């Protein structure tokens, strides 16, 4: 079991409020991603759940039991750190088995479990090496091995892939997701990378300045963002926001349209604009367009849309995909 509930969790460092009252329900076995810009409090929230920081107020329930006064060692959670935090003086075997040793398991049982975990993570040939003799990806796997071998109630991941190169990151992303599904253990994963959030999560928690802005499945957040912040944060490239007359016509203070929901044409359309920058990715073309009476708009076209900087293009937003927001920034 690994059901985690946050009730009005607060954290302040002196006069600075980092977490301003977080309420959250994390179901057993789900993969929850905390996402948000730097300094939004996502890592702090994870550390509060881990017990590495003390809460300033509120409750954290793990399987219904309030753990705010329980030390990290007794919460039954395991954590994968951004820096891997492997014990440099221990072999891979020692690193993975450390938690079991602390739990007082018999030596052969530790060995059996360590070897099983190592086999799952393709670490068997490296069991007797020291962390410094491993590559970044292998170290990352040792850190994950250390987390899974204890069969915790939940895994906590603190931006675990941010030190890996792009290709390895994609590969590890899939491995982590697969492993979590296979083990069925609750996971909380912190990242600032919204692609990681969208691809890995069952449920995404978007944080901003210490507040939970919205909680929902990736597609829910994508298609029904609750406010301007979530609308702007989820999706890449970012949603276009248009104010003024165009918005007022639709009865909104601000309207939002995603780059992929703008139809591009060289001949005709609702809005006219001049291409400022054209990014040809092969599969897609992203155009940054200075549209008349609107301002800068980003639009996605097909890979063979052959516009270049300086060209005049026409844009037609998909009316059914326009998001409307009121003056307070909330979705209408």
């Amino acid at each position, binding site marked *: 079991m690994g059901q985690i509930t946050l009730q009005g969790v607060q954290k302040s460092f002196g006069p600075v409020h980092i977490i301003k009252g977080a309420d959250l329900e994390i179901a057993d076995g789900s993969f929850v991603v905390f996402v948000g810009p730097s300094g939004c409090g996502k890592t702090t929230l994870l550390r509060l759940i881990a017990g590495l920081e003390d809460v300033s107020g509120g409750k954290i329930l793990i399987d219904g039991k309030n753990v705010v006064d329980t030390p990290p060692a007794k919460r039954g959670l395991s954590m994968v750190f951004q820096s891997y935090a492997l014990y440099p003086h221990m072999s891979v075997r020692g690193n993975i088995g450390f938690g079991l040793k*602390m739990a007082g398991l018999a030596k052969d049982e530790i060995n059996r479990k360590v070897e099983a975990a190592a086999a799952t993570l393709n670490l068997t040939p490296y069991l007797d090496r020291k962390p410094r003799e491993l590559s970044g990806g292998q170290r990352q796997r040792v850190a994950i091995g250390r987390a899974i071998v204890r069969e915790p109630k939940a895994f906590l991941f603190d931006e675990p892939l941010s030190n890996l190169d792009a290709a390895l990151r994609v590969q590890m992303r899939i491995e982590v997701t697969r492993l979590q599904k296979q083990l069925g253990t609750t996971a909380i994963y912190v990242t600032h990378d919204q692609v990681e959030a969208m691809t890995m999560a069952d449920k995404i928690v978007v944080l901003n300045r210490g507040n939970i802005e919205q909680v929902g499945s990736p597609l829910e957040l994508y298609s029904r963002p609750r406010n301007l912040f979530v609308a702007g944060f989820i999706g890449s490239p970012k949603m276009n926001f248009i104010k003024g007359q165009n918005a007022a016509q639709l009865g909104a203070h601000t309207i939002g349209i995603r780059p992929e929901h703008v139809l591009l044409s060289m001949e005709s359309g609702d809005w006219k604009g001049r291409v400022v920058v054209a990014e040809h990715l092969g599969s897609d073309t992203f155009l940054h367009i200075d549209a008349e009476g609107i301002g800068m708009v980003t639009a996605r076209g097909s890979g063979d849309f052959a516009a270049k900087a300086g060209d005049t293009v026409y844009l037609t937003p998909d009316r059914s995909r326009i998001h409307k927001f009121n003056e307070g920034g909330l979705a209408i």
Partner: protein
Amino acid sequence: MARRATTQQVVVSTIGAWFFGFLIFFPILWMVLASFKTELEAFAIPPSFLFFHWTTENYATVQERSDYLHHAMNSIIIAGGSTLIALLIAVPAAWSMAFSPTKRTKDILLWMLSTKMMPPVGVLVPIYLIYKSFGLLDSRIGLVFILCLGNLPIVIWMLFTYFKEIPRDILEAARMDGATIGRELVYVLTPMAIPGLASTMLLNLILAWNEAFWTLNLSTSNAAPLTTFIASYSSPEGLFWAKLSAASTLAIAPILVLGWFSQKQLVRGLTFGAVK
């Protein structure tokens, strides 16, 4: 940019290194050689380097005239005791400053170091009077205490820089792995800090062993360590170079041997953190 040294550069720098190494080592070598000469040869001009009449009579005289073992034992107790006490105080102090620093931590460190900037002779009279009142003159406890105080700032500084290099994440990982503070100390912190603890201990031992100002001023016979033993062979009875050399060789031999075997550790400790 990587640079490749030419053979010529390697030869020149090797010869240079040996030359300066020899230059630094020469006084010790000369002392050892002089200890095996007769008093006459020790004074001879031009001095003879290797071809003289080798004798061990100086060692015999020194052993006869003063109790080497008594002084050596005092040195061991004073250097060892002051090092042990300094470590007992410095380890928790450095831990707390490295792992839960406050706004004032930097100031405290600098303040501690500032005590080393004061010339010891400036406080000789008050310390002497205090020791006299407390009956600590010529006592081992008194010397242990003063040497411990003198070296404490350096010990704390060294350990602090060491501990600061240990990533906090690793300690937190141990905590997440279910280690209590005690087990975290035994299984994670101490093994990672052992090189630092060892080199700090060694440096402090050497400093305390060779400390001459306080030991000469605050002890006469009972608690007198090897520094006093050497000093007794200088001025008053005229200079007996050969005997003085024999005494000095005997005095530095134990610490020299210790330093020789631990030089790798010592160098690592002193340059720690400089190169990542």
